[in-house]
């Protein structure tokens, strides 16, 4: 069975919310829509205080190149346009909405019928994705229309759909495949058409036999969709590792997937693409896993963006368990620890993970015993132990010469370190310092 070339670990899977059917999350009273929910520049608000908005109405316009449109996930009145602290404590431009009713734009097809035909040309598909504000839902929130606008000197050969879900706990991709397999396949066909590639490969890890069976059965009804079961190994869902697992190709240092003829999109994104292209529905919601070992019930929700983490916690579990140590947005390997529960969810949010006190505190650090486990676990073939000491001694350029910028921050090094050294913290610092040095050199 296929997998990537080197390194990797196998954390405890803990997929306890696998069987929780996707529920509709109820509307709150107020919501805050951030203007940068995507990679790149923030969108520019195009509504005024006091304006009435409908669900799906454009409220933030993409003006910069690297930007995505933002649509209102709610109907109601714009209360103010201001900044808002996001879940991680960073101040961002935002539109505050007082929610009234649930009135949708008329153009949006809300019927449950599945629409199979798509007669748009590739260029029209990309333009529509841009208009609908679709971004990658795998975590990086890269604007999808930019990814699918292939430069004339590049050629796409492979479309790869990332349904690996290698992060422990997360089950949103699992659920969406179980419940919306046909829509996903239509979305994949649309993306395949936009790129003009013969085949699309859906990579799914072998620990998900049910979605593999469902997707295989559905893919058989479509042309050019191949389901590829992969050996279970973290971080298979990392873009470069997935490309390597499926095509055997390696993205060179500092290059993009398209440089080796690949385009990778998340399975959730292909569902969003179906809704945007076939149903005229802008990207206003995502599937969010609410999970934790100590929670009485596990959930997968359809959640519209802009609802605060606090509201999600209150609705799904009443209040956080007494012994909660940490709340994570995303998976435990690459997710971010939430510091501000009042912050709103955004397009990239895939889970609310509640970690118990007993697991939330790092063990005490001791001396490096040079066991080489970090190096053997690194999927990029780097030397985390070396970065750690180079960065501590501020020998940043040496760290750069040892390819510190290749690090994908998957966390395998810190995960496997017997001395509990915070290797990834040091590497992140080193990467930032080295980027600063490179910028200064350019000037």
């Amino acid at each position, binding site marked *: 069975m296929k997998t990537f070339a080197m390194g990797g670990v196998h954390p405890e899977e803990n997929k306890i919310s696998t069987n929780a059917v996707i529920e509709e999350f109820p509307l709150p009273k107020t919501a805050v829509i951030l203007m940068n929910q995507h990679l790149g520049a923030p969108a520019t608000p195009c509504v005024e205080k006091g304006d009435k908005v409908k669900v799906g109405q454009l409220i933030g316009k993409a003006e910069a190149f690297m930007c995505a449109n933002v649509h209102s996930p709610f109907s109601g009145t714009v209360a103010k346009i201001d900044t808002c602290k996001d879940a991680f404590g960073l101040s961002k431009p935002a539109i505050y909405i007082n929610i009234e009713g649930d009135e949708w734009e008329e153009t949006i097809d809300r019927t449950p019928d599945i629409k199979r035909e798509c007669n748009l040309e590739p260029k029209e598909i990309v333009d529509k994705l841009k208009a609908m504000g679709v971004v990658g839902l795998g975590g990086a929130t890269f604007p999808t229309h930019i990814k699918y606008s292939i430069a004339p000197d590049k050629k796409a050969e492979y479309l790869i759909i990332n349904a690996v879900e290698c992060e422990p706990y997360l089950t949103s991709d699992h659920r969406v495949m179980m419940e919306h397999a046909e829509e996903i396949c239509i979305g994949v066909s649309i993306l395949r058409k936009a790129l003009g590639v013969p085949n699309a490969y859906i990579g799914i890890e072998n620990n998900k036999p049910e979605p593999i069976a469902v997707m295989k059965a559905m893919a058989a009804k479509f042309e050019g969709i191949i389901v590829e079961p992969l050996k279970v190994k973290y971080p298979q869902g990392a873009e470069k590792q997935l490309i390597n697992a499926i095509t055997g190709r390696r993205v060179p240092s500092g290059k993009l997937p398209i440089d080796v003829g690949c385009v990778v999109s998340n399975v959730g994104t292909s569902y969003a693409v179906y809704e945007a292209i076939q149903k005229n529905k802008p990207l206003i919601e995502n599937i969010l896993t609410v999970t934790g070992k100590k929670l009485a019930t596990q959930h997968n929700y359809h959640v519209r963006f802009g609802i605060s983490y606090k509201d999600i916690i209150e609705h799904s579990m009443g209040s956080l368990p007494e012994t909660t140590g940490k709340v994570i947005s995303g998976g435990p390997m690459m997710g*971010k620890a939430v510091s501000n529960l009042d912050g709103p969810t955004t397009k990239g949010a895939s889970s609310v993970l509640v970690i118990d006190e007993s697991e939330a505190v790092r063990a005490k650090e*001791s001396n490096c015993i040079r066991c080489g486990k970090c190096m053997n676990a690194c999927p990029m073939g780097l030397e985390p132990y070396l970065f750690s000491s180079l960065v501590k001694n501020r020998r940043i350029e040496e760290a750069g010469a040892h390819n510190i910028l290749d690090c994908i921050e998957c966390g395998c090094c810190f995960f496997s370190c017997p001395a509990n050294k915070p290797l990834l913290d040091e590497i992140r610092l080193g990467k930032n310092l080295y980027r600063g040095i490179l910028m200064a050199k350019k000037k």
Partner: protein
Amino acid sequence: MKLLNVSGSPHVHSDESTKRIMWRVNLALVPSLIVAVAFFGLNALLISLISVCSCVLFQWLIEKFIMKVPSTVSDGSAVVTGLLLAFNVPATREMIWLVIIAALVAIAIGKMSFGGLGKNPFNPALVGRVFMLISFPVQMTTWPKPGENLFSLVSVPTTDATTGATPLGLIKEQMSQGRSLSDVMADPSLNLPSLGDIFLGHMGGSLGEVSAIAILIGAIYLLCRKIISWHIPVSFIGTAFVFSAILWLCDKTAFVDPVTTILTGGIMLGACFMATDMVTSPMTKTGQLIFGFGCGLLTIIIRNWGNYPEGVSFAILLMNSVTPLLNRWCKPKRFAN
């Protein structure tokens, strides 16, 4: 309101720890200890016990009174040093107290003077052993005959029953008197052990190095637990085997055959437990192969052309000194190049 923890990812950790690794190494040394006690009697047990206790005690004292840092003795690394040190000395009565000096040198000079576990460039147990070999050459080369004390656990022997020699020592001594190797090997008065005896460990030698089979059981356990990889043991033993085979084929009257070479002396113990010490061996597979090759080569050179009949400790210590260089030269294969 209770505050939440915030930290960078990853938020989970494997159950791997230094402590677990060290205690597993200790467990892997148990088969050799059992064989040592069976062959050399209570002396072997006493030496091991005293060696371990002194190592732990010295580390605790140094951390408490000199370094003034929280004690790390519970990580089990001092126990590993203590056991390996005991395995590297002859099981004679004198060693019961001499091993305390060895433990002091191993822990104080070999390990703690550099900052403790992980910072030492040389294998502490070997530092202790080589210090003893140079300072107490007579005591360190007086070997009890195995089996004389066999199962004598009930009665403490008052004197060492007989003193023998290691096969390597005997051969070297006889050959230095001008006899040819085949002549020495055929001499029944020397009582050289048969190959079967050698494999089981029924021969003269240091406490823990005699039984290849017990060492291999421990090594296989460490391999399964992924604490060591095959690279160093295989390249060490392989190089020693091939090099000695070439010499033996060139001149069978002057060089010991390859099978006897790798099964006698400290090659097995050294290759499986001392050269594979994480702290003092290279990190990449290529580095480890070169490291093992160097150990094997140096061992055979010292055995055949050096003054000492045995060269494993010196070979490993010499290769320890080039480990930083090997780490610098041998980089892991990058994914993105």
